[in-house]
């Protein structure tokens, strides 16, 4: 998807529309399962946006990891923890007004920052998977190792929390 032209604009609006609609669905739907599915739709929308930004590797990883693994995990989580009526399984709490106020004020601040800041938009550059790979193992080697440890820790943690629960119940 080259940058200029009508096609790109059309794609952008379509994809962002899908993403935002799905996101609103995730947040406002009462039924947890619907929210879970809408969540994976959001992830795919975002992957599409990456395509419009010529970040093919990112789009692939997004689609694979998020909508693949994360969404599935969420659905499993929903199944594990809900036995009663699904339609009322995702109610809002009593803080709707306060929550809305807080969220709007933060978004307002961010929008003010985005619009008022003179972003120096350069000629832009496209990043290939090769560049990313090389950077991973040269400059960002310590974080890379750290993320590995982190995933291991999460793995052990999940196992401990589950196994512990079984032994106890």
């Amino acid at each position, binding site marked *: 998807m080259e940058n200029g032209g009508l096609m790109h604009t059309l794609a952008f609006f379509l994809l962002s529309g899908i993403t935002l609609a799905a996101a609103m669905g995730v947040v406002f739907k009462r039924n947890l399962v619907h929210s879970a599915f809408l969540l994976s739709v959001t992830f795919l929308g975002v992957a599409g946006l990456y395509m419009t930004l010529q970040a093919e590797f990112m789009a692939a990883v997004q689609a694979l990891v998020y909508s693949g693994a994360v969404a599935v995990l969420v659905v499993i989580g929903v199944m594990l923890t809900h036995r009663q009526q699904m339609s009322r399984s995702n109610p809002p*709490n009593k803080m709707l007004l*306060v*929550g809305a106020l*807080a*969220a709007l*004020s933060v978004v307002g601040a961010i929008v003010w920052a985005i619009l008022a800041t003179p972003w120096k938009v350069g000629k832009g550059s496209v990043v290939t998977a090769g560049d990313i790979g090389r950077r991973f193992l040269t400059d960002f080697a310590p974080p890379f190792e750290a993320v590995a440890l982190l995933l291991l820790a999460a793995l052990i943690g999940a196992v401990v929390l589950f196994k512990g629960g079984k032994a106890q119940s």
Partner: protein
Amino acid sequence: MWADFSLHHAWLIPLLPALAFAIISFFLLRSPWLAARLAIAAMGTAFLIALGVVWAVGSKGITVEAPFVMKTVWFSMPGLVASMGVLVDPIAAMMLFVVSLISLLVLIYSTGYMTGDPGYARFFAFMSLFAASMLAMVIATNFLQMFVFWELVGLCSYLLIGWYFFKISAREAAKKAFMTTRIGDFGILLGILFLQIAFGTLDFGELAVKVPAYVQQNGVALLTCVALLLFAGPIAKSGQFPLHVWLPDAMEGPTPVSALIHAATMVVAGVYLVARAFAIFSVLPGAMTVIAWLGCFTALFAAAIALTQREIKRILAFSTISQLGYMMLALGVGSLTASMFHLMTHAFFKALLFLGAGSILHALHDKADIFEMGGLRKSMPATCAMMGIAVLAIAGIPPFAGFFSKDEILVAAAHVSTPLYIGASFTAFLTAFYMARLFLVAFFGEENPHNHAHESGLAMLAPMGVLAVFSIIAGIVPFTMGFGDWVRFGPAHHAGIDWGIASASTLIALAGFGLAWAIYGNGARRSDAIVKQVGVLYSLSLNKFYIDEIYQWFNRNIVTGLARVLYWVDLNVVDGIVDGAAQKSGAVGNILRRFQTGQTQHYAALMLMATVMMTLILAITAGAVAGGGKI
């Protein structure tokens, strides 16, 4: 040779009794016999040295203007040098002689009077301490040293008045004495501070030069106030008008104490202070008139009260206050000689009167009301005779001591202002009357069947005898040997007897005796009814013009009242603020704690609000700082 030795070792006089006090209190508390002998021995040697000093002063011609002075530094710092030392001049010599003699006699007397008292040794210790501090005050070279021993004397009077401390009245009397003298000390202290700051020295010699010079340049106003402040001390110590209330209550102490301290020595300390600093007072006419009039009024006032008192020691106490008024009057009118002369003679016969009263009380087991005595002349002839001599002396009947000294005062008063003279004479009349009343009621009339009196022992009568002799000769001998040109201030005046005033005063005294004989002559009981017709005056005088009650009211309501108010303020206001602040911070803590609702989403909302707030703060301040500069 002895004279030289004693002059140069005059500081031994106070030191010996002080050593006696130390030895007794540390070692001899449980061996009374030894303690008494040690005290008397020490006092005796001190008396001998005093005689030596008198002899030296007489032979060497040391005068008031050129005293014999020895000084050492007590403590010093830049701007304030305090020294201790010995200053001997005719006035001091006279005082040394009188004080050491009477102390010796009273100590001997006490061996008899105090037998059987559990604190016998302690009594002699305190008496020696008193004698030491009195003698040390007499030879003081500067105001500070005098003030130091002035307060020590006050302490001893507190201890000795409160001797029978198991009696609440004695305890309160001691406290009252100390407090009243303390108020006087406040005055002296202020006076001393003025002198120290104005003249940089407290030495009598230097002040005698500097004060008159100062008065020449910038007038009397400030110095009169200083003088009056200094005079506040004598008002308290010598029981002058407003602060005399403690002296009658001081009779709670044992009689030897009253004889020595509240008749002969301590109470005259005030007179001695004014005499010692006469160079300052004499150049301040304003102060002199105040002293004179206060003295006269006190004399009259005390005599009026003494008329109606029923207890023997109270009568003598008021008579002392009155005689002290006389001495102050003499000083006020400018005659140092008359005042000192009367001081000496008064010391002898007043001590004798008190010792006599002591032997009566000793015999009648402390029954003090004279109307319950009566007819003691038969059972106590010696005491009666000696008391008679003393009464004649105090009334001023020639040739007894009192006549000469009182005559000097009347002559001096007459020269200055007639109203003072009239007042003084009328007081002389009252003195004669109440002394005669005491003598007649106590010794004449029929025997009171209940008390079976008996004559006191030799230990008590011997000292009274010596005092009786002195009461006779202490007037005529010094008069003839020119006491005037020995103890004087300014030119020596050889006033012979001014026969006019002398005869007038003798007649007045005899009139007093006559009136007393008329009223109390034969039946003592009936006589009191006559006196009652005088009505309100009688009750006023009996209750000492209610001055005691006024002071009590003031102390209870004003002082303690204010104390309670301040205590309330301290508890509720000062502490209130402190505890309030503690409560408040605890309360704030609780409020903050309540914020912790436990709801995760409340926390998240608060965090986001904080982020937004911080953005605003930064945007505003950044805007204000226009994008530059550090806060």
